[in-house]
C-alpha cells in the first residue's frame, strides 16, 4: 500500500502543497480500507474524523432525504470535524469497497497551533466544498 505521503501527492486538493508541507500533513493521515455498506459517519454523531476519498464510491445522506454521491479521488467527507458544532451533518455510507484517508480533528487542531499557515491552506481548500454542500443539509 502506498504511504500517506504518496497518497497525498496524488490528490488534487494537495496539488499546490510543497513537499515540506505534505511531509507535515502525512503523519496525521491514515489510509483506511472500507467495505461495501460500511457506515463511516452518522448524522448527529460527534464528528471526530475527516475523510478523503482515495478510491470507491460513497453516499452522503442529509436530512429530508437529500443526498449526494462521491466517486472521485480527492472528494472529502466529514468536514464537520473542523467546523462547529462538530457533529456530522450527514451519514456517509460506502457504496462499494474502497479506500479513504482519515484525519483526526483533534490532531488537526494541534497542527493548527504549530503550523498556522499550512492549516490555513488546508482550510481554504475545504471551504469551497463546505459552501457547496451547505444547501443540502439546511432545512
Amino acid at each position, binding site marked *: 500500500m502506498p504511504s500517506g505521503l*504518496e497518497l497525498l*501527492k*496524488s*490528490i*488534487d486538493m*494537495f*496539488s*499546490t*502543497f*510543497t513537499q*515540506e*508541507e505534505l511531509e507535515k500533513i502525512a503523519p496525521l493521515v491514515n489510509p483506511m480500507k472500507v467495505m*461495501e*455498506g460500511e457506515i463511516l459517519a452518522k448524522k448527529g454523531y460527534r464528528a471526530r474524523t475527516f475523510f478523503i476519498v482515495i*478510491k*470507491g*464510491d460513497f*453516499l452522503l*445522506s*442529509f436530512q*429530508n*432525504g*437529500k*443526498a*449526494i*454521491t462521491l*466517486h*472521485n*479521488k*480527492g472528494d472529502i467527507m466529514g468536514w464537520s470535524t473542523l467546523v462547529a458544532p462538530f457533529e456530522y451533518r450527514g*451519514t456517509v*455510507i*460506502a*457504496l*462499494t*469497497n*474502497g479506500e479513504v484517508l482519515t484525519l483526526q480533528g483533534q490532531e488537526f487542531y494541534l497542527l493548527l497551533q504549530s503550523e498556522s499557515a499550512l492549516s490555513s491552506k488546508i482550510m481554504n481548500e475545504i471551504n469551497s466544498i463546505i459552501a457547496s454542500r451547505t*444547501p*443540502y443539509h439546511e432545512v
Partner: protein
Amino acid sequence: MYGLENISAHNGWAITFVGVTIVFTGLTLLCLSIGQLHKILGLWENKDTSITNQDRKTLTSNAANAFPKPVMPVKDLETIAQYKLIVERLQQPFSLPKLLDIAVKIGLDRPHSTINTLLVKKIIVPDGKGYFIWTL
C-alpha cells in the same frame, strides 16, 4: 474596608493605570519592532522569494481516478426492474437514501454496489437539489 475606599487604600487605581500602560507599551513595542523586522531583513539581504507555491503535477491521471467499478452482482434487466418498482413507489424525484433503505429491508442482493452501478450507468441521476431521478 470595602468599595472604593479599599481600592484607594491599596493604590488600586495607580496599579491598574501603570499596569495597563506597561502591558500596552510592551506589546506595542513588540508590534512595532516585528512590523519592521521583515523590512530590515529584506534590506539586509535579498529577500527569499521562493515562496513555497511551486506547481506540482498530479502523480495519477484522471483515468487512475476511475478505479474499476465492481461488477453488478445480479442480472441487469431483472435488477433494474426491481429498483424501478421501488422508485415508482417513492415517486420522482426520490430520495436515494430511502431507495437504499428499502432495498436493504426487502433483502435485495448487494444493494449498495447495485445502486452505485445504476448511478455510474446514469440510470439514476441527481436532480441538483439533493434528490434523484430515474432516467430509464
